[in-house]
C-alpha cells in the first residue's frame, strides 16, 4: 500500500527537482503523443527542444528566444506576486491587450512626429492601460468581494472584442486600403521598441531582465515581499503582522496588470508591429504555466520563460519541417503544467510504501 505522509517542511531538494522531473515526464508523454500522430518521437523532441539552439539555422532562432521569452517572463513575474499571496489574476491576456492598445494609441496619435519623448509616453500609457484593466477585478474584489478569477477572465473576452473594434475602427491605418490593422509601429522610428532587431533585442527584453532583478530583491529583501509570502502561507498571521489584505490585493493586481500591459506594448511596438485582430497569441495564458514552472521564483521564472519560448519556436520548426500540428504543442504545454502539479506532491509529502499502521 502506498501512503502519503505530510512533511513537516517542504523538501528543498524536491523544490528544485520537480520542475526538471516534470519537463522530463512531459518529453516522454509528448513523445508518445507524437508517435501516436505518426511522427518520429525522437526527431520531434529534438526539433522542439534542441534545434532552435544548436541546428545550422540556430543563428536565426536564437534571437527569437529573446523575443518570445520576454513577454512571458514579464507577465509571469507580475503574476507570481499575486499567486504567492493567493490572489488569482487569470486575465493577464486582457491586460496585455489593453496595454498594447493604449500604448499604440499614444504612438499613433503622434504619427509622424519624431521625438525621443514619444516612446517613453507609450510605455507609460501601456503600463497604465494594463494597470487600469487589472484594477477592475481588484477593486471589485476589495469593495464587493467579487471573485477576481472570474472577473479578470471575463475581461479577457471584453478586451478581445475591444481589440477587434480598434483594429477595424479607431486605430485602423488610414493608408491601409481598408485592410484591418493599424500602422506599423515597428517602422515608425520614434515609436519602435526595437534596439537591435538582428539579435532580437528590444526594450521588452531589457524590461524583463530588470523586472526579474526587482522581483528578486523585493521578494527576498523587502518588507513587501515578506508580506506577500506571509499572506499566501497564513492569511491570519498576515493580518496580525499588520498586512492590509485589501491593499495587498490592489498592489498585486495592479503590479501584474502593469507588467502585462508593458509586455503588450513592447510586443505591439516591435515584434508584432501593429494592432491587428489577432496580434495576441495567448502569452497571457502561457505565462501562468511559466509562473508555476518557475516555482513563482524570479530566477525560476526566467529559466521557465526561456524553456517555454523554446517550445514555441521549436513548435514552429516542427510544424514547418515535420508537419506537426501547432495544437500538439499547445497540448504539450498544458501537459507540462499537469505534470508539474502532479510531481509537486513530492515536495510537500513523503511517499511511504508497505503496510501502514491502522488509523
Amino acid at each position, binding site marked *: 500500500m502506498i501512503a502519503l505522509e505530510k512533511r513537516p517542511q517542504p523538501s528543498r531538494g524536491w523544490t528544485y527537482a520537480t520542475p526538471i522531473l516534470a519537463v522530463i515526464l512531459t518529453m516522454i508523454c509528448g513523445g508518445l503523443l507524437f508517435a501516436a500522430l505518426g511522427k518520429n518521437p525522437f526527431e520531434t523532441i529534438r526539433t522542439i527542444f534542441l534545434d532552435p539552439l544548436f541546428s545550422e539555422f540556430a543563428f536565426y532562432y536564437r534571437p527569437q528566444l529573446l523575443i518570445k521569452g520576454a513577454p512571458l517572463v514579464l507577465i509571469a513575474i507580475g503574476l507570481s506576486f499575486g499567486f504567492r499571496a493567493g490572489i488569482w489574476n*487569470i486575465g493577464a491576456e486582457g491586460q496585455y491587450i489593453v496595454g498594447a492598445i493604449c500604448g499604440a494609441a499614444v504612438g499613433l496619435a503622434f504619427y509622424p512626429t519624431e521625438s525621443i519623448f514619444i516612446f517613453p509616453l507609450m510605455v507609460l500609457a501601456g503600463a497604465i492601460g494594463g494597470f487600469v484593466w487589472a484594477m477592475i477585478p481588484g477593486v471589485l474584489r476589495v469593495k464587493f468581494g467579487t471573485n477576481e478569477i472570474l472577473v479578470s477572465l*471575463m475581461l*479577457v473576452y*471584453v478586451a478581445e472584442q475591444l481589440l477587434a473594434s480598434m483594429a477595424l475602427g479607431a486605430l485602423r491605418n488610414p493608408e491601409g486600403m481598408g485592410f484591418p490593422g493599424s500602422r506599423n509601429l515597428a517602422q515608425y522610428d520614434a515609436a519602435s521598441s526595437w534596439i537591435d532587431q538582428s539579435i532580437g533585442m528590444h526594450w521588452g527584453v531589457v524590461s524583463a531582465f530588470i523586472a526579474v532583478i526587482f522581483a528578486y530583491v523585493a521578494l527576498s529583501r523587502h518588507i513587501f515581499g515578506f508580506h506577500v509570502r506571509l499572506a499566501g502561507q497564513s492569511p491570519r498571521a498576515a493580518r496580525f503582522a499588520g498586512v492590509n489584505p485589501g491593499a495587498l490585493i490592489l498592489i498585486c493586481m495592479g503590479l501584474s496588470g502593469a507588467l502585462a500591459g508593458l509586455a503588450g506594448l513592447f510586443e505591439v511596438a516591435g515584434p508584432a508591429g501593429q494592432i491587428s485582430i489577432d496580434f495576441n497569441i495567448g502569452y497571457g495564458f502561457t505565462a501562468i504555466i511559466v509562473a508555476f514552472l518557475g516555482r513563482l521564483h524570479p530566477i525560476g521564472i526566467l529559466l521557465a520563460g526561456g524553456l517555454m519560448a523554446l517550445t514555441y519556436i521549436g513548435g514552429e520548426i516542427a510544424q514547418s519541417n515535420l508537419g506537426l500540428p501547432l*495544437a*500538439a504543442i499547445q497540448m504539450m504545454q*498544458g501537459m507540462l*503544467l499537469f505534470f508539474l*502539479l502532479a510531481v509537486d*506532491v513530492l515536495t510537500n509529502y513523503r511517499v511511504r510504501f508497505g503496510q501502514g499502521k491502522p488509523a
Partner: protein
Amino acid sequence: MDLSAINPVLLLASLMVAATPILLAAIGELVVERAGVLNLGVEGMMITGAVCGFVVAVNSGSPWLGFLGAAAGGAGLALIFGGLTQFLLSNQVATGLALTLFGLGLSALVGQGYIGIKAPAFPDWHIPLLGDIPIIGPIIFQHDPMVYVGLIFVAGVWAFLTYSRLGLVLRAVGENHEAAHALGYDVIKVRLAAIIFGGACAGLGGAYLSLVRVPQWTEGMTAGAGWIALAIVVFASWRPWRLLLGAYLFGGITVLQLNLQAAGSALPVEYLSMTPYLATIAVLVIMRSGRAPGALGQIFHASR
C-alpha cells in the same frame, strides 16, 4: 435600427436554446462545488466535449451517440483533474487552469480534420398538444430534446441534494470534510464521483454548442461559456433552481444582443458581443451571493 424585426416569441424560444449549454455545464459544476471541490477547468471540459461529441456524431451519424461521446470525453478529462487533486493533492485553482489550457490544445488537435463539416441534424421535438398552444407552445414545447434534458438535470440535482441520503453525504463532504471523514464517509470517493459527473455535464454542454447551436466545429468555439457557467454557479448561491434563473438571464442577454446585431443596431457589433461578459461581471457584483460550501477548494488529506 429596425426593432420590429425582433419577434418576441422567437426571442423567448431561442433564449431557452441559448441558455442550455451553460445550464448543463453549470449544473455539473454545482454538484462538484457542493462536494467541496472547485474545478476551474469547465471551459476545457466543455470544449473537449464539443469536439468529442462532434467527432462521434459525424462518424456515427447519430447525435445521441455524439452526446454520449461528449459526456465520456468531458468525464475523462475530469478524471485527470480528480486524480491530480484528490490523490496527488494538487492546488485546485492551478489544476483547473491546467485542465482548461490542456483541453483547448487537445480539442484543437482532435478537431483538425473536422473543420467546415456540418453536424448530423438533431431535429426539434414538437410535443403533441402542448406544442400546439399558441405563443407558449413555440416558446417552451417545441425544442430539441437536450433542452429538456437540461431541465431534468436541474430538477434531478435539486431532488438529489435535498431529499436523498447520498445528497446529504455529498453536502456534508463539501461543508466539512474532516467531520465527514470522521463519520466514516469516503471523502475522496464522493468527490471523485462528483467530479466525474461535473465533467460529463460540461461535456454535454459543449456538445450542445457543436451539435445543435452552431452546429459546426471551430477551434475555441466555447468562447468563455465554461467560465460563465462558473460565474452562474456563484450567482445561484449553489442552489439548483436559482441556477436556472441565472442561465436564462444570461441566455436572454445573449439572444437579445444577437438579435440587435441582426437588426442593425447603431452600436458596433464588437460592443454588442461584449455584453454577455459585462453582464456576467455586473451580476457577480450585484448579487452578493450566499455562503459557499465550507470546504470549497480545500485539500483533503486524511492524516493518521
